[in-house]
């Protein structure tokens, strides 16, 4: 139940809005004549929306729709101010924006009918549309940071283009919005947010869910504020024009607050608003009034006929996106069994990584992250010196993991390889929405028209006593996300091939680094006694440390990655001596998708396998490897080893008992040897 206080705020707001409507300056004929096309577009939008509603009501359409009837002029007016190369990000109520920007109304109908001829092959449907210059998604506010990235990439390309983000005023509850507003202001981007302020978010009145003022919010973030409404048509068009021009000329973000009213339900049939209120706004709706006049009657009729004809055709069309075409993703699954000797230079991992990224930057890549500029050079000093060497390519950001990830996605859409750094792996959870709802989905939901080849890199792991929120290994939370590949660096393998491999991928990827491993000198063959070190499978390949022995004498195959891979390599002999198990060690770089082929044969021979990970084992990486091995080798004995399932404590001794250490490895191997 809405509280009395909120109810009173809401009624004030509604009254104020009604005032606006009644005092709106009438539209002059001259103006209408000059904006005929624009208004015809507005009518087109309305007709399409109504047609869609009808198709739904007659059961011919699948899914959902959020019509913008009553708000059409916002999209039309804003688009009138845009030029070629400008981008729009939109939300669930995007049809008006889409038709205003692209004109592809028939493709939109096809899209909602689920046809292959639709905007995104029928796959995304109403809320997930894509075209060059237009992108929409059903999650509130999550495209705003992406818009920031698109703006930035325009600046890099020295194009005088900008990006407009449509939101509702309800979206002003989402953190994404404020992160993006801060980011765009901090970077001085020509980012225009258009807020369609219709006093209601789904079923919640603004009076209940919003406090403060929209103007206050915009200006407190340093955005230039404009406002208008969809009843004062002349003022609307000129304000939109002014706002967009301001952003473009001054390279600064602009907030455009447009009062309007949605005449239909939020989606279909879910409308609890007061009927009288709706009636009022319906009667006073500009387009409604104009439709009654003769001026646009021919146009309206033509539009209706066109739509009818198209709908008829579309209803008899049957071509949908093939399952087999849809199902394929961009993940690297190819298996190479090429074996090369492991021959690492004698440098620390951090230095090797720095020089690998140096190469990438030299090739035009960008790095985004917190505190990565010079002279600081990043929390772990990985980017030290790179900012000076490649000015403009090292983008140091505010503390906004979600926004900078979205920003990176936007940058990557322009074809610029972008590496986003999340300072500590623990904070990657802040970026999960961007990874899951944007990066992961672009390829499929936009019918394979757009990829997001961003790489998110982050150091995970404990061992420094940094405590529960600075020591986690959260691999299990980011493994198995559609179309997102996951890799891990280790000081066992020189990383430059892996890093340049990431640049060649089309899908988004996550690179897990290890804070403890950064400082290790890369593994030297000379330090390995009676062990051969090789790497199987090239750039994203798996290292194999095999003790000098006959293959049938090996008792256990140990599979690890990252820092633990190095730990086992360094303590190979000790672990052997204590456990009485002859094992060989695979240090994997590609965590997902798992390339079982690299170690399948060895596991088959040994018959026993131990999978080691730094995070806790349950529901983790080891479980997936175990499953995949069990599918090809049903007789194999499998054990997995991870940290204890508790937050990582700070005190040294306690921490090392929680994390995996050599003692745990020895015990695990002994258990495996006992088992039969």
């Amino acid at each position, binding site marked *: 139940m809405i509280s009395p206080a909120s109810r009173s705020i809401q009624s004030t707001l509604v009254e104020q809005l009604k005032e606006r409507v009644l005092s709106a300056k009438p539209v002059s004929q001259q103006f209408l004549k000059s904006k005929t096309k624009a208004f015809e577009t507005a009518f087109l939008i309305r007709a399409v929306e109504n047609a869609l509603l009808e198709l739904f009501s007659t059961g011919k359409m699948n899914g959902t729709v959020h019509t913008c009837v009553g708000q059409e002029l916002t999209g039309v007016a804003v688009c009138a101010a845009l030029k070629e190369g400008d981008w729009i990000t939109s939300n669930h109520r995007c049809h008006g924006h889409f038709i205003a920007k692209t004109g592809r109304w028939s493709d939109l109908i096809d899209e909602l009918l689920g046809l292959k001829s639709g905007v995104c092959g029928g796959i995304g449907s109403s809320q997930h549309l894509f075209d060059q210059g237009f992108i929409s998604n059903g999650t509130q506010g999550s495209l705003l940071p992406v818009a920031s990235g698109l703006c930035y990439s325009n600046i890099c390309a020295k194009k005088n283009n900008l990006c407009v983000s449509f939101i509702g005023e309800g979206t002003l509850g989402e953190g994404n919005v404020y992160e993006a507003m801060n980011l765009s202001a901090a970077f001085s981007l020509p980012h225009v947010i258009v807020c369609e302020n219709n006093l209601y978010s789904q079923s919640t009145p603004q009076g209940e869910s919003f406090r403060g003022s929209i103007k206050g919010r915009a200006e407190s973030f340093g955005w230039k504020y404009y406002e208008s409404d969809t009843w004062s048509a002349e003022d609307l068009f000129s304000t939109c024009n002014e706002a967009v021009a301001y952003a473009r000329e001054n390279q600064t973000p602009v907030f455009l607050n447009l009062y309007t009213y949605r005449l239909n339900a939020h989606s279909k049939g879910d409308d609890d608003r007061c009927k009288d209120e709706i009636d009022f706004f319906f009667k006073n709706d500009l387009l409604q009034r104009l439709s009654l006049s003769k001026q646009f009657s021919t146009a309206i009729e033509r539009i209706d006929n066109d739509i009818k004809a198209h709908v008829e055709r579309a209803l008899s069309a049957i071509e949908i996106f093939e399952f087999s075409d849809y199902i394929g993703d961009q993940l690297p699954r190819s298996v190479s069994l090429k074996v090369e000797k492991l021959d690492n230079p004698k440098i620390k991992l951090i230095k090797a990584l720095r020089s690998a990224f140096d190469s990438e930057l030299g090739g035009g890549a960008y790095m985004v992250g917190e505190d990565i500029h010079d002279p600081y050079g990043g929390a772990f000093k990985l980017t030290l010196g790179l900012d000076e060497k490649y000015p403009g390519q090292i983008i140091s950001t505010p503390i906004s993991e979600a926004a900078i990830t979205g920003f990176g996605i936007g940058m990557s859409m322009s074809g610029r390889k972008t590496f986003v750094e999340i300072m500590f792996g623990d904070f990657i959870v802040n970026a999960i929405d961007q990874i899951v709802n944007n990066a992961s989905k672009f390829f499929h939901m936009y019918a394979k028209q757009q990829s997001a080849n961003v790489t998110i890199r982050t150091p995970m792991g404990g061992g420094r006593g940094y405590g529960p929120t600075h020591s986690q290994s959260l691999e299990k939370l980011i493994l198995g996300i559609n179309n997102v590949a996951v890799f891990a660096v280790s000081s066992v393998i020189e990383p430059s091939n892996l890093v340049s491999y990431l640049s060649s991928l089309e899908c988004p990827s996550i690179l897990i680094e290890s804070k403890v491993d950064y400082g290790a000198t890369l593994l030297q063959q000379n330090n390995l006694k009676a062990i051969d070190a090789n790497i199987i499978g090239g750039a994203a390949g798996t290292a194999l440390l095999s003790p000098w*022995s006959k293959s*049938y004498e090996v008792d256990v195959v140990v599979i690890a990655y990252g820092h633990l891979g190095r730990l086992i390599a360094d303590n190979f002999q000790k672990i052997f001596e204590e456990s009485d198990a002859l094992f060989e060690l695979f240090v994997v770089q590609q965590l997902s998708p798992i390339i079982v082929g690299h170690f399948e044969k060895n596991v088959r021979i040994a018959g026993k396998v131990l999978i080691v990970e730094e995070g806790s084992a349950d529901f983790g990486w080891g479980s997936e490897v175990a499953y995949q091995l069990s599918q090809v080798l049903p007789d194999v004995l499998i054990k997995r080893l991870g940290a204890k399932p508790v937050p990582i404590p700070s005190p040294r001794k306690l921490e090392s008992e929680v994390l995996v250490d050599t003692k745990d490895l020895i015990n695990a191997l002994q258990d495996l040897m006992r088992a039969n």
Partner: protein
Amino acid sequence: MEVLVPKENNNDNMVMITRLYVADGTYIEKGADLIEFETSKTAVVLQSPLSGYVSYLYQEESEVEVNSVVCTIGDAPPKINLEEVGLISDRVAKNSIQNGVIFSKKAIQINKDDVDIEGKWWITSKILSKGRDKSGAIFTDDKIQKSTLDQDDIRQSSGNYNLPEGGYKLVKNTMRKRSEINSLSISGGGPFQSTIGIDIHSGKRIVPSMMFDNSIQDLICYESSKMLGNMFKDLNGFYISNSKIGLYSNVCAGISLDSLNKLTVARIQDSDKKTLGELQQAISSIIIKFEDSDFSADDLKASTYTITDLSTSGVSYMRPLLNGSEALIIGVVRRSESVFGLYVSFDHRVTEGLRVASFLDNLKKRIESHFSTGPVSATDSCDFCMKSLEAEMHLGNRGMLLMSTISGQKSICRNCYEGW
């Protein structure tokens, strides 16, 4: 003081410790027997250079590098770190750890003498249990089958691939046998060895010999050496590669002698330059040395070709294996009272059948010329110096020349024809 492994001959880089005369850590007098080594040829006993407490670095049956430190002799008994090596008793641990072999803690505690860990670097208790796993099964066939060659390309090791399924006992090879195996492996004759045989008809020797009454070994040696030194020089060599072979600059016949476990090849240096008499002497002396096991280092140096004589046994066929870096080996068997069989194995990469057949044809003729099927004509003599035919043949010549002169046909011995 460090005691080094002695270098007994030019061939051996490694020798085996066959006996440690005193217990580790005990006191030894100067001059007392310290260690017995076995080289590829013989056994050597090293005496202690001074008095003191011995600390052996290796155990019996270890292979050690020549000129490396084999033990130290100090003023005080050496300290023993029990923790480091577990139970020191008779077992392998201490020596192998120092050689780089890595033992698991459990493996060190196993006390077994008869397991061969040769070629292994990582020893678990399972490996020491003769490859038996917990259930008692030896490394199962399918585990071995599952491992393939390319797995082992990634590994370094030596050792047996296909272990048979039944029980078996491991017996260590002596140094001598190992040396022989190495030697056989060097020539690598293998698929390139071919054997051709020919029969030799003997009879009564024109120049009788006591020692070689019932054997033609001397004649084979004499004639074959001469031929290899003259018109069959191309057979006196060895295979190097596709593009080259080596030809020896001298001829040294190797005489192969065998009695139980003592197969040896002794050589006669410059056998092509010796007379038959000298050769007979040389061969006899070799036989005596063999029986007494009294060869000098020189005797055992490499030959350029070998003769192996099985004519005293009852066999009628043999296919001798090429020895070391050689291209030719002549084997002798006996078919009957007066018929010997010669089987020549040769390296087909150095020569071909037709050439070797020609060699054999020639050899047969020359050997057979030492025999007569009838009584020797006592009247045959040199018309110039009156030397008898018998005496001429005793000198190793095959006969006398029949010369046409103005005054008719005359016999002339070699010396008279060639001059003194």
